[in-house]
């Protein structure tokens, strides 16, 4: 039951974009069309899941064993950077078509604050490995949802008349703000699962 609570919170109540403000840069950059949004979401979900497992193991198995917790930021970002690099190489070999489809998004994931953010968060929240993985997957789903909703709206928005100064990023941000307001309505749902 607690696990379901974690999932609901990660996707709706504390949505990674509209509530925790993680992953905004690619969120605004990639969301102009729905298919690129979907591609990015999958890439993020994939890296997010693997990265959270690996960083978890590094934290518990190495950093905490040797009292090196202050090296957390450095080791985590290096792990993430190498992971993204490896995923790129593996994907190129195994599925060149998928690799082509994801294109330039893959290396950009390293600087996506969602990955590093979630990696640090699960340690702070003191989750065990299972809870961390579920949280990471759920966050990925929440991110995908946010991205897809947002890009669908932006596609519609591009067909309307927007004042010149508001075009592009400003109107996108205000749209995101309105969606964030909608998401606030989910607050408290997780109380049911307590």
């Amino acid at each position, binding site marked *: 039951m607690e696990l379901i609570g974690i999932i609901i919170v990660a996707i709706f109540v504390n949505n990674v974009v509209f509530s*925790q403000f993680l992953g905004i*840069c690619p969120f605004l950059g990639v969301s102009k069309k729905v298919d690129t949004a979907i591609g990015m979401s999958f890439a993020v979900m994939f890296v997010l899941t693997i990265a959270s497992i690996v960083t978890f193991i590094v934290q518990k198995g190495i950093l905490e064993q040797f009292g090196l917790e202050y090296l957390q930021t*450095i080791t985590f*970002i290096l792990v993430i950077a190498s992971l993204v690099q490896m995923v790129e190489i593996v994907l190129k070999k195994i599925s060149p078509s998928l690799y082509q489809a994801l294109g330039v998004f893959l290396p950009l994931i390293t600087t996506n604050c969602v990955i590093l953010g979630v990696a640090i968060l699960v340690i702070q929240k003191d989750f065990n490995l299972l809870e961390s993985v579920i949280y990471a997957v759920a966050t990925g789903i929440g991110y995908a949802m946010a991205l897809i909703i947002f890009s669908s709206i932006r596609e519609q928005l591009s067909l309307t008349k927007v004042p010149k*100064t508001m075009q592009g990023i400003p109107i996108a941000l205000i749209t995101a703000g*309105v969606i964030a307001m909608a998401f606030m309505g989910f607050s408290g749902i997780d109380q049911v699962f307590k």
Partner: protein
Amino acid sequence: MNKNLNVLINGIIRENPLLVLLLGMCPALATTSSAINGMSMGLATMFVLICSNTVISLLKNMIPDMVRIPAFIVIIAAFVTIIEMLMNAFVPALADSLGLFIPLIVVNCTVLGRAESFASRNSVLSSVFDGVGMGFGFTIALTLLGALRELMGTGKIFSLNIYPEQFGSLIFVLAPGAFIVLGYLIAIFNKFQNKASTN
């Protein structure tokens, strides 16, 4: 010296990292629920920017091209860890309110971006000026954003009462308000820039 002064002003206005280059939005939205939080976040980022720009410019000829990104990341992460430890030790309440976003400075595209596009190709002195300029521009943007949100949301700026709290719109201090205020701020800054460039 003129060139360096240009570099400085560039970072504050023409290429303001947040309002023009649109980098570093995650911390901008998350840490600006009050003016003081926004300012602290900006200053912490500026510290990292100046230090990493300096070191990377110093070492630019000693880092082989193929490993430059990992090398930059390690150097930047080092300074982020240092500021994190210093803040936890000497301003713990502030460190608590900035929370997760202090270590997230390491993935702030501004820092890595400037390292790659400026510090690794320019003199140390210019890189320092660039760090100061970009950092200052970021801090001003963040402080402005935080002040606006705090004022409209709670009637205070830097915890000084400007008008009674009950007339404030709480939404501005919450998540949606962040998006909306930043959107308008960028739009206004764009207008201001466009006007200035057509003069």
